[in-house]
Every structure is written in structure tokens, then in C-alpha cells.
């Protein structure tokens, strides 16, 4: 891995910005898609404006649609940004029309890449970004391999130059497909060259979970089953399925959010301190968390999960249709738009502590957060005569929309009574730092270019995450009872509320 350069470039010492990534060519398969225009190009351009990528950086888009280089540049030009900077950046943006199933495309790709290396000085460093359906990953990699494109070209320095591959999610549609995909890919490319992207992990506040846990020693002693009652991880959206209905109807909330994003958050909350942030330690610790997740037997699934579909309701005062009435959704669809799962980790630190993960569409509010709910004080010294409920301390790591951290604690209300009131100590990213957070994709692309895979998913972790979700999917598929519904714009299905209440707990209000 070539992440550290201080010892190599003494002028980089003491500078707050990360090092400039090596010159390279990024080849985007599926370049005419929305992702390139909306996320990848704006992120790379932002990196260029911050001098975090080399001036030689080149980008070659590939898809079937016919564009010239200049048409492609015009199509992907971001709405904001300095015109001079875009002129400089866009000189390195190219396009090649081609079918990624055909050999001929890769022959042309090879000579185009050599031409770019020669003209732009990209030195044979290549990053292949596969923004296509996962079924096509092995096909593309196989063709790249046949053309010798998975290794630096002969004119490159094998010590310093590199080839890396970013695989866009979803990584498989179930355990079997993810396992097969991993197997097929690893036949062609070693794990060290593969970067499985989950943009959630590039979010500033997600990365801050590690900083919060491992840079503040006051929390570590209470970060365990002795003091924590349970953890709630929520990703609620007020939006419906919008234009993604066709895709979503085949996936559902569990695959779309829980299997990847929410389990990643769980891993960051539950993992042991890594030995280092510079090697694979963080990913090792996350994999250990996935290994410790309890896998449910079919008969245990119903008691540990809730699923539901949204019905008609109101969002922002306006009526919205139910899921079954959405365009491109089958009227008989049994796809869940809400999923709540109770996970347990069978390890020393977390034995007996439930992790409640919930996600849903068309809920009351958009919010993504992790709530660490501590055990209540053992003795009610305050407020017992006033009927005060003895609430627990809650530490909330807010990931969106207002990123921050808050800690709820009880304080005595001034006066002769012994009553408590709960107050929040609140840290808000937006109010405490003037600098906006970089886009998640920018962080992740830069990490890949400098060879740091920490924020990318490793193959074993992806499979382990499928291992714990697959039994739930199977049990749900075998359960033909009517799917519960919830009114759009509400907190979720009634079943989820009672499910928590039965355990003497309650969901945090959205």
C-alpha cells in the first residue's frame, strides 16, 4: 500500500491537506449513467480544485451511447465551479463508445489508454470504475484481463504504478450471488486491487464515529454491555421510491439499506479499537463484528424483525400514494418499504445488547442517526414522588440531515422539589465548523487513488453481511401472511412500536 508519503516528500510535511494522488486514468464503465454526471465528475472536479489529484488526471468514459469527447464533456460539466479550473480539468476528460460485452471494445480501450498515458503522462496508473450491473463485473474484468489491462503496462514501473478496480454497489443480490461474484472476481483480480464502494462510508459523520470513539477516552469505559442498554440505528426517509421503483421493487428495504449501509454503521459502533488506521486493521475489526452477529434460524426471524409497506398518506401536507399505487410497482408486490431488525452480537463486549436497525421510506421525517441508549440509573433518587419517568442517558450520533452529536442527561429543576428535566448537550457540525464536508464520493475516490482501502468493503465482510441477512430474506419469502402497512408520513408500522414496547423499550421519535 502506498498511502504514506511524508517520508518521501518532505515538502508535504505539516500540510493539512492529503497528498496529491498519483497521475492516473479513471475508466468509467457505464459512463452515460446518472452516477457519472451527478457524483463522480463533480467529486473528481472538486478534488482537482483542491489540488488533491494530479494535473495529469484523465478520465475515460465508456458506454454504448455515442458521444464525442466534447459532447461528453458538455454533458458532464458540473453546474458550479470555476470556469478556468473546468477548462484545465476537462482537457483530461475523454469518451469512448463501446459495448462492454465485446472484445473489440477492449482492444480499442487498450490503445486509447496507451495514447492517454503518452499524451497526458498518466504513467500506466489505471482505475477502472465499474458503474454497471454486478452481473457484468466478471465479464468486464475477464475482458480487461485478456487484454492485459489488469496489470500496469510494460512501460510502467511495476514498483510505483498500479491498477485498481472500484465496484459500485449492489454487490450481489443475495448470499449466493455475492459469494459467486466474489469467487468469479477473485479468479481474475487479487483482493488488494478491489475497492467495493459504499458511499455511506465516505460521509464525514460516519468517519467521525471512529474519531469519536477512539479519540475520546471518556466513552470507551462505558462502551459495552455493562452500561449500554441497546443501540438504535435509524435511516428514515420521507421520500418514496421515486424513479427507482423498478429497481427497488426487486430489492426492498432490507437489501437496499440494512444489508449494506446500516450493518456498516453497526460495525463501526461495535468494533474493537483497531491496532492502526494505516493498514487493514479497521477492516479486520469490522469483519470480526460481522462474524459475531447472531444468525437467525427460520423460526426466530419473525420475533426479531418487522417489515411493512407504506400505504397512502400525507407528506409535507400533500397526499401521496401508497407503495402499491406507485408507478412501475406491481400491485401484488410484497416488497417491504420498512424493515426493522434486532441484531445481537455474540461477543464479550456486546453479549445481550440488542442492536435495533430500522429503515423505511415515506416516514415522518428524513433522519439518519445512531442512538446509544444507556442503562438507567439503578436507584430513583430524584423525582420518584412526582411521577417522573426515569429516562436513560442517550448519546446520539446524527449522520443526517443535521450532522452532529448530542448527549442527553438529567438535571435538577431549580427549586424546592427534586424533579429532573432532561436536557441535551448538542454539538452541531454545521455550527461548529465553517468548512463544509467534502462529498462522500470525493473522499472515497481520493482514497482509492492513493491506495487506501480502509473505507471500502472487503470481500469477506460483504459475504458475512449477506450471511446474517439471507436467513431473514428466506424466512420472509416463505411467510405468505399479509404484509403490514403504515400510513405514509407516520413513524412506521404499529407492529414495530409494539415490538419495542413489549421489551420495555421505545423507538426514538423521528
Amino acid at each position, binding site marked *: 500500500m502506498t498511502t504514506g508519503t511524508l517520508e518521501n516528500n518532505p515538502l508535504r510535511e505539516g500540510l493539512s491537506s492529503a497528498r*496529491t494522488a498519483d497521475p492516473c486514468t479513471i475508466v468509467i464503465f457505464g459512463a452515460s449513467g446518472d452516477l457519472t454526471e451527478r457524483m463522480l465528475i463533480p467529486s473528481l472536479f472538486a478534488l482537482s480544485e483542491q489540488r488533491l489529484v494530479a494535473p495529469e488526471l484523465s478520465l475515460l468514459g465508456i458506454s454504448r451511447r455515442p458521444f464525442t469527447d466534447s459532447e461528453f464533456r458538455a454533458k458532464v460539466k458540473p453546474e458550479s465551479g470555476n470556469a478556468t*479550473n473546468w477548462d484545465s480539468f476537462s482537457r483530461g476528460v475523454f469518451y469512448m463508445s463501446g459495448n462492454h460485452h465485446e472484445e473489440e471494445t477492449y482492444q480499442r480501450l487498450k490503445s486509447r489508454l496507451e495514447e492517454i498515458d503518452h499524451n497526458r503522462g498518466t504513467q500506466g496508473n489505471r482505475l477502472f470504475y465499474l458503474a454497471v450491473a454486478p452481473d457484468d463485473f466478471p465479464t468486464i474484468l475477464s475482458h480487461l484481463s485478456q487484454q492485459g489491462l489488469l496489470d500496469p503496462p510494460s512501460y510502467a514501473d511495476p514498483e510505483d504504478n498500479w491498477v485498481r478496480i472500484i465496484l459500485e454497489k449492489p454487490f450481489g443480490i443475495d448470499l449466493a450471488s455475492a459469494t459467486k461474484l466474489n469467487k468469479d472476481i477473485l479468479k481474475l483480480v487479487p483482493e488488494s486491487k478491489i475497492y467495493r464502494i459504499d458511499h455511506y462510508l465516505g460521509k464525514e459523520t460516519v468517519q467521525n464515529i471512529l474519531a469519536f470513539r477512539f479519540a475520546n477516552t471518556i466513552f470507551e469505559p462505558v462502551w459495552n454491555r455493562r452500561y449500554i442498554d441497546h443501540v438504535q440505528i435509524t435511516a428514515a426517509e420521507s421520500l418514496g421510491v421515486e424513479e427507482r421503483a423498478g429497481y427497488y421493487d426487486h430489492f426492498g428495504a432490507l437489501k437496499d439499506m440494512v444489508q449494506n449501509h446500516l450493518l456498516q454503521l453497526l460495525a463501526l459502533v461495535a468494533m474493537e479499537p483497531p491496532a492502526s488506521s494505516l493498514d487493514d486493521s479497521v477492516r479486520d475489526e469490522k469483519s470480526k463484528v460481522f462474524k459475531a452477529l447472531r444468525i437467525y434460524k427460520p423460526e426466530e426471524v419473525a420475533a426479531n424483525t418487522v417489515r411493512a409497506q407504506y400505504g397512502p398518506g400525507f407528506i409535507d401536507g400533500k397526499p401521496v400514494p401508497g407503495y402499491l399505487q406507485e408507478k412501475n410497482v406491481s400491485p401484488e408486490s410484497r416488497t417491504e418499504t420498512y424493515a426493522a431488525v434486532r441484531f445481537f452480537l455474540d461477543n464479550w463486549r456486546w453479549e445481550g445488547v440488542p442492536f435495533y436497525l430500522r429503515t423505511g421510506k415515506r416516514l415522518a421525517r428524513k433522519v439518519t442517526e445512531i442512538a446509544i441508549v444507556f442503562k438507567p440509573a439503578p436507584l430513583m433518587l430524584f423525582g420518584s414522588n412526582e411521577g417522573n419517568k426515569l429516562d436513560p442517558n442517550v448519546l446520539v450520533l446524527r449522520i443526517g440531515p443535521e450532522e452532529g452529536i448530542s448527549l442527553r442527561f438529567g438535571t435538577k429543576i431549580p427549586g424546592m422539589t427534586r424533579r429532573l428535566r432532561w436536557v441535551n448537550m448538542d454539538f452541531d457540525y454545521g455550527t461548529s465548523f465553517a468548512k463544509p464536508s467534502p462529498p462522500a464520493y470525493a473522499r472515497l475516490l481520493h482514497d482509492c487513488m492513493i491506495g487506501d482501502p480502509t473505507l471500502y468493503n472487503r470481500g469477506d465482510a460483504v459475504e458475512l453481511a449477506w450471511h446474517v441477512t439471507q436467513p431473514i430474506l428466506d424466512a420472509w419469502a416463505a411467510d405468505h401472511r399479509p404484509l403490514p402497512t403504515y400510513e405514509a408520513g407516520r413513524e412506521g408500522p404499529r407492529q414495530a412500536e409494539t415490538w419495542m414496547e413489549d421489551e420495555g423499550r421505545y423507538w426514538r421519535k423521528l
Partner: protein
Amino acid sequence: MKLEDFRKLLFLKDTVEVDPHKLPGTLAKLYQEHQKAHPEEYQARLCTHNLLILCGSPEDAAGLDKDLDELMQHYPGRTVVVVFDSDYQGPVQGLLAQYTRKEHPAGDLVGLHFPDDGKPLPSMVAPLWVDGLPMVTIWRGHPPYESSWFLALVENCTRLVVDSGVQGGKSLEEVLAPLLPLWKLIHDPYLATQAFTDVSWARLHVWRDWIASLFDRPDRRPLLKSVESVELEGWSQPGDTVPHLSVLYLASWLSHQLDWKLSKPLHAVPGGYEVGFQPVTMRFYTRSTDDAELLGRPVRVSFRGQFQGQSFRLSVERDSNNSSTLVLGATGPACSSGASGHRLHLERLNNLALMGQELETDRRDWLFEKSLETLLEMSGNLQPEAV
């Protein structure tokens, strides 16, 4: 200066006149009143820092009103601005403006109009600081390094920011004069926990970053050991050939980081100045400008040398048609046409951005301290044995 003029100098929003000798009580009372006026479920007080800005004269406070107003909106904290006014002989005058965010108190901006003598100042501001938060002191103008009350203020802060290049200089001696007192302050054993910086250094961040990026490529790094000459050019007033402090800091930073050993101290040569290091000669040039904001800023840094029998030139310089655009030049080995001529628009580092940068820095900048020391050595103002 009258109170109304003082108000206009620092404040863009409504103020109340306050007794400067009763500020802690006044601030506490205003907070309580705010709480009463907003009986929400809870009231948070947003505060990330304490900031003291000292202006040696009303002229040093020029343009502060806009910067302060923006600063208060971006950085919640307690800010006290003191303006020394040698024409004013009356009692200290105080004005206060409060800032809120989402109904939460998020900043007090106190302005103190001070006569020339700063002796009472440390005792007036010390009780104001919000406990446990950084205490940044920024001095605009030439700091009174020899005054005991200035030392008392420095002792009470966590970070001192000065601008040694603010007054420029007609001779090299004048340019370098503020540096030795600053170096002594940094090495005062009683100030071991304080952090220091110089605005002329802080402004160089983007330039250092650009110059470093020239050598980030693995195949370029060997070129660092083959540099034979470095040319540094800075904006100046017409006819002025003395290098500005920022450019000198850039040179001392380079020589320190690249471990170049001084062989001939800074001296005048036809058309500019020169300093000799064992492997490298550094030359300083000036380019005249009428734009006051550009004065003293670097224009060009270029490296020349020979590597494996081929000569190379790597450079960062401002576009001749647009000073806000930096152009990268690279010719020779490990250089390609893809990089040469690469242009990037440079956001001007305004006072607000600089203040924000300092508020977000909380530790001693040893790189600055080493660059200052190296600069004093390369100009013959500090003998190595004194270090």
C-alpha cells in the same frame, strides 16, 4: 475617534453600550434575559472559542466590520476587539453585539475603544473568557513586544497570531526587524504551552501545498535532490527590490525541509537578492503591482536542475493575465504535457478565512517556528549557536 465612529468601525449590527469594567456581569445578565425570552425545552449555548483581536490603531481595524460579522456567524464564540486610539484620552468605551443561531446564543462581540495605554487591558479581558476553550489572540499592526501588559495577554492566551509583514519595509533590515522579538517570545520558557503564528506565514499554505504537489509523484521525488537553483518572485511596489516576508518564509521553509545547508547569507545582487546553500542558490526577484491586496504575495517559484543528464524546470506561478489563477509548469524528466500549463483558480485568502484557519488550529506549529528560525539564520540575524 467618537463612539459612533468606533461603532461603525467594528459593527454591522445593533449594539448596546456597556460598562467595560462590568463586562462579566453584563454578559451573564444578557444570557439570562435571552433564556427568559426563549423558554424552550432546553437552551444550548454554542461556543467553540475565545478570540481577542487587538488593533494598534484605528487604521489597523479597517475592514474588520464585515469580517467580524461573518466570523461571528460561522464561528460561535466570544470575541473581544480592542482598538487603541492614540488620539483618544477618555475612559475605555465598550459596545456589545450578540449573535444567535437557531435561537441559541452563539456569540458575543465586544468592542473596546482604548486610549493608548494598554496596562489595564489584561485584567479586563481575563475574566471574560469562556472556560476550557481555546483563547486566540490576533494582533493587527506591530505588537508592543517589550510591554509587560502585552506579555500578560500572551500568557493568558493559547495562540498568538501576529502579522510581521504588515508594515513591509524599504530595506531588508526593516523587513526582518519584527522577527527576532517574535522568535524570542516563542522561546520564552514561560510561554511553552502557547502556539504562535505569523500571518505572512499562514498565507503561504496554498503555495506550500502547490509546491509540495509538484513532488508528490513518486517519479518526481528524486528531482528534489537534484535541484540547483530556485527562483522566488513576489509582488512589490514599483522600484522596490526587497523581498517581502512571505517570500522569505517560503525560502526558509524550503531550505529547512530539504535540509539545505547555508553557505552564504542573504545579500543583495543586481536585480534582486540571493542566498547560497550548499547544493542550491536561491534568488529573489520582485514584480511591481498597483494592487494593494497583492503586495508581498508570491508570484512565482521555480526549481531548476539536472537529473540523469537532462535539465528540468518545475514551477508554480500566477497567470500573467489573471493573478487569481496559478499555472503549473513542468519540463524535463518525469514531466508530461498533461500537467504543464495546468491552471487552477486560487481563492484569495481573505482576513475571514485566515482568522477561521487560525481558530481551527490548536497546536504549536513547529514548522513555522523552524522556518522563522531558518529565516533568521539565513539572513544573518541569528547565529546557529543561539538556537
